[in-house]
């Protein structure tokens, strides 16, 4: 794969810090997310991932530093403003309304209208058609787009949420733990669709715990640790192996300790099994 070093910058944070009282949630963080790339944001709980995406999606304002969209400095005062700049966030559980039909979900908040005057109405026919087309492009077959979203599997639901954001013109897609609650196969469905979004030139910020889901699809990795960027740099995929990512995420020494502990457990289990055999 050619290193996409010279693609245009979609979203950039420059030396951003965020404080909540005495707690430093983000400390001098700089990242640069490019169009047509999947930028993977890794880190343990409390590393600052949520705070970072909430700054990009307009929920929080940075206390220090700059936020740039398409190279222009911006200050968002609400999620709506971020949305208007083409930045869409897909939350793990908060994306879809289970008892609402698929096409109604797909167009919630951006309903196409037809007719005029007081009879101006939601163009359900058009909504059904578009939803059907977009789903089939993803390889999700539904008998009827009028069926509730709750009938879809978790992975399909997540995919529909991504398709919705893309269809409605997202240029930057923030995916918050999209595969966390999914099985291997289901996660594959979602990641395949993330790859399609990238192919369309969309900048994807993928937040995850799961290196094994992220590694095959990501172009760049930024590992957050206690509010800061680990090693103060974003890695290109060519610069780091999967094992190194895992190692850095967990903190190398802690992982060594863990493997010692696991070995100790295994020894005890063996000893126990031996004793049981003797009894």
């Amino acid at each position, binding site marked *: 794969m050619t290193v996409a070093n010279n693609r245009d910058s979609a979203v950039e944070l420059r030396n951003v810090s965020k404080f909540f009282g005495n707690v430093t949630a983000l400390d001098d963080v700089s990242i640069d997310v490019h169009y047509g790339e999947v930028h993977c944001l890794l880190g343990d709980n409390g590393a600052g991932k949520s705070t970072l995406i909430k700054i990009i999606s307009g929920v929080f304002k940075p206390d220090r530093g700059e936020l740039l969209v398409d190279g222009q400095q911006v200050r968002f005062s609400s*999620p*709506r403003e971020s*949305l208007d700049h083409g930045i869409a*966030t897909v*939350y793990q559980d*908060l*994306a*879809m*309304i*289970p*008892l*609402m039909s698929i096409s*109604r979900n797909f*167009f*919630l*908040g*951006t*309903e196409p*209208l037809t007719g005029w005057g007081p009879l*101006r*109405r*939601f163009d*359900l026919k058009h909504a*059904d058609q578009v939803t*059907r*087309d977009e789903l*089939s*492009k*993803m*390889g*999700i*077959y*539904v*008998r*009827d*787009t*009028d*069926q*509730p979203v*709750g*009938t879809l*599997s978790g992975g399909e639901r997540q995919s529909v949420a991504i398709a*919705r954001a893309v269809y409605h013109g997202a240029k930057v897609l923030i995916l918050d733990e999209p595969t966390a609650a999914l099985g291997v*196969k289901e996660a*594959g*469905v979602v*990641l*395949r669709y993330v*790859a*399609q979004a990238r*192919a369309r030139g969309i900048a994807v910020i993928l937040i995850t715990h799961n290196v094994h889901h992220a590694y*095959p699809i990501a172009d760049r990795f930024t590992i957050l640790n206690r509010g800061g960027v680990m090693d103060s740099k974003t890695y290109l995929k060519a610069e780091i192996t999967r094992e190194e990512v895992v190692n850095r995420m967990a903190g190398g020494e802690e992982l060594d300790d863990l493997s010692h502990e696991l070995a100790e457990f295994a020894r005890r289990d063996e000893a126990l099994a031996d004793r049981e055999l003797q009894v």
Partner: protein
Amino acid sequence: MATAPVGSAEPLMSAPVAQPRFSAKKVLLKPEMGALAGAIAVWIFFAVVAGDRGFLNARGTASYLEVAAELGILAAFVALLMIGGEFDLSLGSTIGACGMIAALVASEYGHNLWLGIGISLLFAIVVGMANGILVLKTGLPSFIVTLAMLFMIRGATTGMTLKITNRTQVGGLNDLPGYDTASKLFAYEFHLFGASFAGSIIWWLVLTVIAGWILLRSRFGNWITGAGGNLQAARNVGVPIERVKILLFVGTAVSAWLLAMIQIINASSADVVRGEFKEFYAIVAAVIGGTLLTGGYGSVIGAALGALIFGMVQQGIVYAGVDGQWFDFVLGAMLLSAVLVNRFVRMRAVSTR
């Protein structure tokens, strides 16, 4: 499941599949289906038990339709509000207050009855907005906020009326200027098959069609379902939650105002206790009609059918010669079975493909 192998980044172009026009399962899983079956069953039951005592003739039909209409006017908007994820318990006392305001303005202060009607409408709109704003600003459940409003409005209505008139009823509205034109709008009667039917039945049907259209065909209807189904998700995609909820509260308050006008014109008097328990009956009708207590799912047609069942049972019991007090028992039993049926339908709805 027609998914391409994991790892393929090419879009899988499946052959275009036509949207199925009709499916029996889809129809059976609509929220109002339980209420439709229930309405038919209740009608057959009373046709058998009380058919020869007047339940089936035009007068019997007119009597249960009027009861159904008065509740149905409320239930249509209560269903919308509940689908939007909120309750309005204040509408019972709003009925009493609106009726009394209109009567006092005309009868005690000597104005045209239409001025009273207008002022009470303004009052209803203010109550609706206050409910909505309080719920949104405090973040408290609407159940509690509107329960407080229920008592406050009832207490204030009684207190003010006693202070002004020394009584809790105001009568003689039919002698006041404006009554005749007002009665053409609110208490119109039409004759069919030798019986006179209440004009409230027309109000009920028209409002049910409008509310049903709003829910199923308008953009606002999609916002209602979205706001009730998952507030945060709806907010994230840009649904104006505040506007939706406040308008829904105004809707229930205005439906209470309309019922109050129909009642005071019909009775030619206002009473501070009017509308008692209507807030609960309207919720019962909506729930029997398939609307979920948790929001995000329901039907305006179902609420109309729930009101119809309510009317048929209330009048049917009398025609059957049973003590009318048993009505409350039957109502409670129907509510319980409706909730169980709804739960079953809902589980089927999200489990079938």
